[in-house]
């Protein structure tokens, strides 16, 4: 699939731009380009649900970044501080990492099944062998707590973080109000 390679090059270039550019608003837009390229890649490999989630997350991220940058400053705080001689080593390391990631991604793309062949063989394996391998009659439970238990652990951590955030923010209002009432 040549489109994936085009997206890959665009993503790496946008990531480099996002780190190196001095205007923070342009950096946020480049970061958004990386995310939207990922969502297009998800559509190309037939994972539309992931693509929708990626688009929502990416829109929110870029909007938050843009809102913060518009209220504070456009210019990166370390702009213009580097001397030209010091840039050589970072640029070399940067290029090496870009090539490394490009090679990894090409390896992954080679593993993709060819165009036209069925891509749902992982799901087919879960359905046929799930009961035998996990002992769970509910295939959904077998997937979320056995095959993809790490995913569920991450979900639980997300919920925990949400609870901690709500308690931190909302309880402060309650406390302030109560203390004010008690003091007066």
């Amino acid at each position: 699939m040549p489109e994936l390679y085009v997206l890959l090059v665009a993503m790496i270039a946008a990531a480099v731009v996002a780190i190196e550019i001095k205007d923070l608003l342009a950096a946020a837009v480049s970061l958004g380009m990386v995310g939207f390229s990922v969502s297009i890649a998800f559509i190309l490999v037939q994972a539309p649900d992931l693509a929708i989630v990626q688009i929502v997350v990416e829109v929110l991220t870029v909007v938050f970044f843009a809102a913060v940058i518009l209220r504070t400053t456009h210019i990166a705080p370390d702009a213009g501080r580097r001397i030209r001689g010091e840039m050589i080593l970072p640029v070399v390391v940067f290029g090496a990492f870009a090539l490394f990631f490009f090679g990894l991604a090409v390896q992954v793309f080679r593993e993709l099944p060819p165009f036209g062949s069925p891509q749902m063989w992982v799901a087919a394996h879960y359905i046929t062998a799930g009961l035998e391998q996990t002992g769970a009659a509910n295939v959904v439970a077998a997937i979320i707590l056995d095959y993809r238990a790490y995913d569920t652990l991450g979900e639980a951590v997300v919920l925990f973080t949400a609870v901690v955030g709500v308690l931190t923010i909302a309880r402060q209002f309650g406390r302030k109000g109560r203390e004010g009432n008690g003091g007066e």
Partner: protein
Amino acid sequence: MTTIVQTVSGIVGGMMFLFGGYVVLHGHLTPGGGFAGGVIVAASFVLMSLAFGSVEDSERSSYRFSSFFESLGGLSFILIGLFGYFAGHAFLNNLWHAVGQPLRLVSAGIIPLANIAIGIKVGAGLWAIFLALGASRFAMKD
């Protein structure tokens, strides 16, 4: 709240709690699981609190209760995952998946245990969120 709401809540609340426990315990057999069952359990707590209690009063006493169970659920899920690690397999490996008979309650290894841990965590977490939001609203109204 009115007598109608209190009477109906008194009848329904216990059933909701039992149904939530059922959904959690049978997560590996029927649709549902720790997340869905935990939400139902939390909903039964919310119903009772709305019908019978003042949220402002219950916040102080229930905050320690809910934070204890939230932490307990999260830690026991990680502990269940570590069982697999210390038994010589991967983290969250499904130990004892051959114990018991499929389609029975005792089956599927760590899946029901993890469901119980997640159910406790989700239930306590949503209850804590409800308490925090409700209490802050009452405090700001004053």
